[in-house]
């Protein structure tokens, strides 16, 4: 039995975007994340899928401490990440790292690769590995940078280059090396390949899988590409408008999607072969726009676009129910509510 490494319990993050009413007493909020609960197990790749604006990235940014949650908790190895009002201790920051979506903007163009990868080493005062063999501390730092570059399959002379001299894939490899510099145990991958060409995507993905096996990393893998998710994640959660609507083992999820939104999502994936076409659920044509996150519809937030809408859907927000072992879904169609 594997243990949970990161647990989200009813996580909420609301952003105040304005005020209304007489005297501006009422606040207008966007409920970016509105009651998300799931747990990532030690050593697994947990996939978080959703359309843009569904709150995937907000979950990621809250986890690394960029935001404080409005309500709910995130605990890492049983320890609450937001205890009191104190800043997060360095040791905890070291354990949770992130790789951002667009390497073009996540790497400082004025810093060389050596400086980019060296900074986390410096901040976290990582002890020199291997043990000091002559040379001062400076020599060791360089050695570590070289090691990290080799780890992501880049030649050592890249440390003197600047981000704009590299291709998109190479930049993302540098971003991965930087994330791994602190020797984390948990890495958030926020759409690590969506800014890259499909011809380079595979290399990055396989590199990430190799590093995971080598260093026993746990991944929270955020993407909107379901075909990619099928190949990397062991479990998947689908988000829609700040809420998780289905969680399942990946294989089970693709074989047997329950939620109407999930079925719609799966049936709209463009695929390249006949065998894949057979795996898709029957075509469900999506209608309507994704509603604005400011005016979330009452009841189930999907009911305006749902093909199997019932009366109850516009009134009562469904809760998560387990339909099979490890497969939970948030929809009135299932469970005896």
């Amino acid at each position, binding site marked *: 039995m594997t243990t949970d490494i990161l647990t989200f319990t009813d996580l909420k993050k609301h952003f105040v975007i304005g005020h209304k009413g007489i005297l501006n007493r009422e606040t207008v909020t966007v409920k970016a994340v509105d009651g998300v609960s799931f747990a990532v197990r030690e050593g697994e790749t947990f996939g978080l899928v959703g*359309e*843009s604006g569904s709150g995937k990235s907000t979950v990621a940014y809250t986890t690394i401490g960029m935001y404080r949650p409005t309500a709910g908790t995130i605990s890492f190895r049983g320890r609450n990440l937001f205890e009191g009002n104190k800043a997060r201790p360095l040791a905890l920051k070291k354990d949770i790292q992130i790789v951002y979506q667009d390497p073009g903007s996540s790497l400082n163009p004025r810093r060389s690769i050596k400086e980019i990868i060296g900074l986390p080493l410096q901040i976290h005062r990582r002890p020199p590995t291997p043990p000091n063999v002559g040379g001062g501390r400076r020599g060791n730092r360089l050695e570590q940078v070289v090691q990290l570059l080799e780890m992501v399959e880049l030649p050592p002379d890249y440390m003197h280059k600047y981000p704009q001299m590299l*291709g998109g*894939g190479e930049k993302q490899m540098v971003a991965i090396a930087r994330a791994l510099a602190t020797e984390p145990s948990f890495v958030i991958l926020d759409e690590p390949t969506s800014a890259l*060409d*499909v*011809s*380079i*995507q*595979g*290399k990055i*993905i*396989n590199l990430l*899988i190799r590093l995971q096996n080598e260093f026993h990393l746990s991944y929270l893998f955020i993407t*909107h*590409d*379901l*075909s*990619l998710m*099928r*190949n*990397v994640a062991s479990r998947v959660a689908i988000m829609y408008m700040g809420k998780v609507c289905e969680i399942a083992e*990946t*294989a089970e999820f*693709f074989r047997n999607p329950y939620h109407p939104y999930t079925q*719609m*999502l799966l049936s*709209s*994936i*463009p*695929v*390249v*072969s006949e*065998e*894949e076409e057979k*795996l*898709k659920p029957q075509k469900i*044509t*999506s*209608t309507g*726009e*994704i509603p604005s996150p400011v005016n979330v519809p009452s009841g189930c937030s999907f009911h305006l676009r749902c093909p199997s809408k019932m009366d109850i859907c516009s009134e009562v927000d469904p809760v998560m129910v387990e339909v099979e072992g490890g497969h939970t879904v948030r929809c009135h169609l299932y469970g005896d509510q």
Partner: protein
Amino acid sequence: MSCERSEAIPLIEIKNLHVHFSVYGGRLKVLDGVDFVMRSGEKVGLVGETGCGKTTTMKAILRVLPMPPARIPQGEIYFKGRDILKMNASDLQQVRGRGISMIFQDPTAALNPVFSVGQQLEAVIHHSTNRESKLSRQEIHQQAIASLQEVALADPERLLRSYPVQLSGGMRQRVCIGMALATGPELLIADEPGTSLDVTIQDQILRLLRKLVEEKNTSVILITHTLGIVRETTDRVYVMYAGNMVEVAATTELFSHPLHPYTRGLMDAVPRLTGGGVSDGIPGRIPNYLNPPPGCRFHPRCPQAMDICRQEKPYFYKLSDNHEVACFLYQGSKEQGSKEQGNLRPVTCDLRPATWRAL
């Protein structure tokens, strides 16, 4: 339906098109002899990595490349038999809009943020129709409403008064499609019409596009790097790499038997719903256009590169009526023995994408 409309003269024919860009470091040789033909009523896909020259080719057709820095040292582009590159401004204006219209990649950048949707859409209709018939302001307004209704947008009156920032991404893209189709073009060029959108919305847009195109019998060039979309939408596909067309085939044929090593690499790199992991993709990256590799531009990344690939540029080899490939691996595979190929045997045994992995 479209048959009586010029059997012999293709709708678009590009012959040996070269486009260069002058930059500080020298001259970027971006397009290097592009050939392209399409008949009226066809739906053609154009695929390739970012920076392969897909959009440049299409902009050359519409003559909207910024010149300078762009230069067209060589090549001809025929639209229904007339060379676009030699047209005067007023003829060109006739081709743009009524003849060819384009949906640009990013709907946010394609719409002007300081004019309302109505102002922009009505201007398009005004300019494309006022040659034959002078429409009153009221008639133009009615047409604008009709074209928004066509792309399934609710409440067109209100939309015409609103500004692009007030619309969602999907709505903006639909406004762009409506605008492109408002002029009743014979050819629609759609440059990555779904990339900036979510899967379900992208699916909606593509279905809408397919329906409209079918109804009006418009010809379409669809540019994308999502192979799945090409498979579901087009009849024929051109594969482009570094300013060259490398393979052209009927869509079903291309997806069942990709021949060019580049096409096979691309196909293999797509993650499959069937699972089983992701392949490493194609090593290396697009060449530097300042100093592109001699011979076949793909040879530095090609797992099957031979000596001849480094020296000579491959021509199209016609393998069947609906499949041509520009690669020396297929040299003489049709006119067997007609050339002095000796031991250069074409790969014919197993052309599944999976062979890439074995290489």
